[in-house]
């Protein structure tokens, strides 16, 4: 008897948002109707979001992909011999030969889309928990050395060296330490944390356990934004799988190491992605930013030493442990070592996740991977690094993706979100939105952020209305300087970045802004 054919349909937010559940249902129905024996696996996304729903079938050990499948395509694809990888207009060939995926450097996301995210067996068959086992064997110091030597920096946006942070927590004596995983991925244009948690949740659990082992923490928290309900469900189930099989809890796999994880939901506050606001929220309070020092590594959650790390930062660690720091450090450029999961979003033809070594020009991502704008019109502006990132012009796209190179021009790579706008965008409205968003989301602690953002909206409105445009221009520049210099965190401190970039490169849009608020 022929073995059951494995068919993969993502259970991932973006794929489902464009119909993956209906496709999966249709496949199950067709299989039943035709008496075909299949095993339907709900995997994570490969990251070629523009091809979602992307269906794969395993034929003689090779995964054959069918892209942009809709529920109405399913009977036809089935009739064309889906289980044998049959010819069909939707057929793309072997998934790993899709150019978009073949040319990536998958270090952190290599299991994403490949495995059944909630199957411990599948995870174990793909090196799952092998890095944690190696860490137990090598010892905590070896892990700290590897993470330091790799040059890994925080992928949440700030780019702080992870090794230094972990060493600080490890060196601080306390009866209790914590790992706090920041999964409050609030930047528009970013979804890499979500994709990793939905596609490889056990990988995150392993990563947090390694972090806990390295710094001497027995408890971890995941702070997940509430806008990700599917992620919450997948993570909850993965935590159960890990607990039920002895990979979380006391004396993990007889190592003598205790570690467990509590999953917390955010409540719609953008500032809670800032690490100290997140800690406040984890303590059940308003997400108001704390002064630093003390650093969270010294006095973090409940006053205890806490390693606060982003999902992708943590997710990069198992392969650093397994393959060695040097392999990681060989990728990238200058002080930007390793890979970043860039996210192509907004008005882009081929949106999705591209994990690449640092150093490639932004233009290559937008043109070679992204295929230019979805609308087919020229690119006018690109916002890199979320709502606090500068807008770059089409002339600036040859910038190499390197933390320091971006900082030099008043921009930032941040969490790697790249949002493309075509020439129909009204940049005055984008500057206004930056201030408006700050006004909505400011935690209120620092006056320049709390009040300045509202004043910023008003000044921009006056500029758009043509009232004393030059004086208001100067006033806005001054306001940006005040906000940047006198705000505790990046909310007030970096809202000026997108605003200034509009003043600098797109000032003419204030005169022509048609869509008045």
């Amino acid at each position, binding site marked *: 008897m022929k073995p059951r054919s494995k068919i993969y349909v993502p259970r991932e937010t973006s794929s489902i948002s464009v119909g993956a559940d209906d496709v999966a249902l249709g496949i199950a129905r067709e299989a039943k109707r035709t008496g075909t024996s299949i095993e339907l696996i709900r995997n994570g996304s490969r990251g070629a979001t523009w091809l979602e729903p992307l269906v794969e079938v395993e034929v003689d050990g090779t995964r054959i992909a069918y892209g942009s499948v809709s529920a109405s395509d399913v009977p036809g694809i089935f009739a064309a011999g889906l289980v044998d990888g049959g010819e069909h207009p939707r057929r793309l060939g072997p998934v790993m030969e899709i150019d978009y995926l073949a040319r990536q450097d998958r270090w952190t996301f290599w299991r994403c889309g490949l495995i059944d995210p909630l199957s411990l067996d599948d995870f174990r068959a793909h090196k799952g928990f092998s890095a944690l086992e190696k860490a137990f064997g090598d010892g905590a110091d070896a892990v700290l050395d590897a993470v330091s030597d790799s040059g890994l920096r925080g992928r949440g946006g700030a780019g702080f060296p992870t090794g230094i942070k972990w060493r600080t927590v490890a060196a601080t004596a306390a009866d209790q330490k914590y790992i706090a995983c920041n999964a409050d991925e609030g930047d528009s244009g970013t979804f890499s944390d979500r994709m990793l948690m939905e596609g490889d949740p056990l990988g995150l659990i392993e990563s947090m356990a390694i972090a806990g082992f390295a710094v001497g923490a027995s408890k971890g928290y995941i702070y997940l934004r509430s806008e990700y309900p599917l992620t919450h469900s997948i993570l909850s189930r993965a935590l159960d799988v890990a607990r039920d099989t002895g990979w979380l809890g006391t004396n993990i796999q007889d190592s003598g190491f205790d570690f467990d994880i509590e999953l917390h939901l955010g409540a719609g*506050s953008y500032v809670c992605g800032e690490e100290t606001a997140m800690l406040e929220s984890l*303590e*059940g309070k308003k997400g108001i930013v704390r002064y630093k020092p003390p650093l969270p590594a010294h006095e973090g959650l409940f006053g205890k030493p806490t390693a606060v790390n982003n999902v992708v930062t943590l997710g990069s660690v198992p392969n650093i442990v397994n393959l060695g720091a040097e392999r990681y450090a060989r990728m990238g450029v200058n002080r930007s070592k390793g890979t970043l999961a860039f996210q192509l979003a907004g008005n882009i033809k081929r949106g999705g996740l591209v994990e690449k070594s640092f150093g490639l020009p932004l233009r290559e991502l937008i043109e070679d991977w992204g295929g230019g704008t979805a609308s087919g019109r020229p690119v006018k502006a690109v916002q890199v690094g979320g709502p606090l990132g500068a807008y770059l012009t089409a002339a600036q796209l040859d910038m190499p993706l390197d933390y320091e190179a971006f900082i030099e021009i008043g921009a930032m790579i941040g969490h790697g979100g790249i949002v493309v706008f075509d020439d129909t965008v009204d940049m005055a409205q984008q500057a206004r939105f930056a201030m408006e968003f700050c006004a909505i989301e400011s935690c209120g602690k620092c006056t320049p952020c709390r009040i300045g953002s509202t004043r910023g909206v008003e000044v921009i409105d006056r500029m758009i209305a043509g009232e004393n445009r030059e004086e208001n221009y100067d006033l806005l520049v001054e306001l940006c300087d005040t906000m940047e210099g006198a705000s505790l965190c990046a909310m007030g401190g970096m809202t000026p970045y997108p605003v200034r970039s509009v003043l600098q490169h797109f000032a003419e849009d204030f005169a022509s802004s048609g869509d008045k608020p």
Partner: protein
Amino acid sequence: MATRRIDKETTSEIVRHFGTRADMLVQILQAIVMRYGWVPEETIRQLADEVNLSRADVFGVVTYYHDFRTEPPGNHIVKVCQAEACQAMGSRALTKHARKALGANLHETNDDVTLEPVYCLGNCACAPAVMIDGKTHGRVNPARFDELVGAMKDSR
């Protein structure tokens, strides 16, 4: 949808589920909103008593977070993403369309449907995105929006 009746015992159960801990207040409130759709004044008072915080403390947390509504929403909740990636794909026009189609401005309820803004659903490669009753939809143009809202109303 879950029952919306405010019930002291249900509130107490939720508090106990989270260990009656003040440091779990955000989680407790999230569970309250999932159950009731909003946080009523009487629940604020009860929570303050049960987790041993002042009413001002609880009120402060409730009003700080966008998720914790202090007015009852409609039976259906439609959120339209207002953030940059969706703006680049026409979310401003989509929002206008949604306001007209639902007869409600942002933060308003009409015909048992509440329209709310949301700042990023993490579906930025499938913009514009909307969330209807907790489910995220991508590549939503006005026609698809009407279809989705139609299906939502049919599910009543």
